[in-house]
């Protein structure tokens, strides 16, 4: 359990932590909004309705809208395989999931550029079919999917491991098909964790810069997502514009943070129930 700080040096440590958080995290965030509004509300409005800005918002949302469902399915599939079956290479699979965590997104972007670019065999074949992968939406979605793919799986795996599969077995014995067991038993058990994974995936997908900047080609009005637009406008000395776009991203981050806290609480609450189920006193 936590103890209450009693000595002055313990308080000092806590103050230091708060100071660090204020200087490193809160102040820059506050400054974004101050800068964005530095030339008045009208300017913010003008920046927000700028076609480049609107295009970037739209593109960012499209990328996120494709990425999140893809990784939702992918994450469930991976977690299912790793926690439900015992097979050769299970550990390896579980480790490979973490590649995007370990790898710099820029490197990931470059890898995709090499494998799927116009000079490559795959890219060539696709452009023969009239589909351009790199420097276009497909490539941006692909790298975003890559960068965000571990989140759902990583949230689900420990939970599903701890929950075991007796409930699913019970469902099967009661005549449920595999799909029914998943839909009526597994899904309700993991719903909060799943939502949590979705929130994390979405946050990362919206904010991704490194990998996307490599494969987007930075074509104004076409392949700029919000983070890329921030960078672009900043280089153009459109400081207020850059900060407005940044403010938009920051606002999304704050919403994410709020959702994450709520979901963490809900997940916690749910596991509390589960442990209570195990440890409570038995009375007839």
């Amino acid at each position, binding site marked *: 359990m936590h103890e209450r700080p009693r000595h002055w040096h313990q308080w000092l440590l806590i103050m230091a932590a708060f100071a660090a958080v204020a200087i490193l995290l809160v102040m820059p965030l506050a400054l974004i909004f101050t800068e964005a509004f530095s030339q008045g509300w009208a300017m913010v409005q003008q920046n927000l309705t700028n076609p480049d800005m609107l295009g970037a918002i739209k593109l960012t949302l499209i990328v996120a809208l494709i990425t999140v469902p893809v990784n939702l399915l992918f994450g469930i599939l991976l977690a299912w395989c790793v926690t439900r079956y015992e097979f050769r290479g299970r550990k390896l699979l579980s480790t490979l999931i973490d590649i995007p965590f370990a790898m710099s997104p820029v490197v990931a972007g470059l890898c995709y550029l090499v494998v799927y670019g116009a000079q490559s065999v795959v890219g060539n074949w696709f452009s023969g079919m009239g589909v351009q992968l790199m420097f276009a939406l497909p490539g941006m979605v692909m790298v975003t999917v890559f960068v965000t793919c571990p989140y759902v799986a990583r949230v689900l795996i420990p939970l599903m491991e701890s929950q075991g599969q*007796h409930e699913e*077995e019970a*469902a099967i014995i009661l005549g449920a098909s595999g799909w029914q067991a998943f839909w009526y038993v597994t899904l309700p*058990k993991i719903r909060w964790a799943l939502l949590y994974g979705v929130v994390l995936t979405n946050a990362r997908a919206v904010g991704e810069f490194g990998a996307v900047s490599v494969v987007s080609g930075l074509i104004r009005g076409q392949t700029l997502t919000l983070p890329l637009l921030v960078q672009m406008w900043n280089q153009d000395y459109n400081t207020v514009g850059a900060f407005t776009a940044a403010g938009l991203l920051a606002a999304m981050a704050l919403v994410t943070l709020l959702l994450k806290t709520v979901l963490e609480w809900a997940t916690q609450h749910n596991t509390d129930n*589960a442990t209570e189920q195990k440890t409570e*006193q038995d009375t007839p």
Partner: protein
Amino acid sequence: MSIRVEQIQKRFGDFTALDDINLDVQEGQLVGLLGPSGSGKTTLLRIIAGLEKADQGKVLFHGKDVTNLDVRKRKVGFVFQQYALFRHLTVADNVAFGLRMLPRKERPARSAIRQRVNELLDLVQLGHLAGRYPAQLSGGQKQRVALARALALKPDVLLLDEPFGALDAKVRKELRRWLRHLHEQISVTSIFVTHDQEEAMEVSDQVVVMSQGRIEQMASPLTVYEQPASRFVFDFLGHINALKGHYDGRSWQAGNAQLRLTTEGACPDGELTLYLRPHEADLSKTPSDSANLPVKLGARSVFGGTVTLELEALGWPAEVMEVELSRDAWQALNAQPGDTLFVHPRQLQTVTCDGNLGPRVTPA
């Protein structure tokens, strides 16, 4: 519905979980699979249920081969040790689950499902808790819900995996009496797994004692206790005192302890181990002609009608012995901790030189 298991074999990697298991369960019986952990009893139960596949052998229900029949079609009810209730569903919805999973054509109407659920909850005496969630129930209640859920589809066979394993002693006792009673009401062929000897003896019609993936003995509780088929069975059913010593053809000796007995040729002479059950001995303050086993009285525990005494061997090598006396006998003895007493076995089990069980003997 009778259950027959033929030559079942199951390995997990290098570990042999079940080795050539043959088992016959008559219709309507309640059979207890008893054994220490790792003896393969749960694996056997899961193979009968169809949750696990045997490497070799057959499972037959009522003479029909179900070895390759899908779990869903075997018509078995299964109760898990950790209840495995659906935590997001109410008690009533848990019980109704199986009925709701039925294909549309076979599924009863909503009102019929509700009625069946009510019947089952009344059967397990939990009608008043229909709207609760599993987390709001006690362990005993949860296990009764799990049982109602398993019975909802009117299974031919009911399988219970350590059904009382997670409960405390008092609830356990009540619940197993209740299960016995319930079984008399519905008389569905049932197999339950347990590592608790008392539970197996009290509840089952037939006890199957298992060890290291093999069946040691299958018989009624009385037979298993009075005529154990192997040393393991004798050892496993209740506490025993092992007395190691030497036999010279007329008497058994260890240090200055001595017993005069005839082993009927089980072990003409040499090393001889004797098993003594705690309740098959008397105590007195003097040795007799046939028995001279001096001990020092240690701790005692009084519980119900019996007094359990811990006795330390005096002048002969033996581990701390346990002897049970009736309360009356204990009071008549009038002994204090630290007193020297003498053990008089009424009956002893010999263990032959090759490690098997020999005849039962009485010092004389």
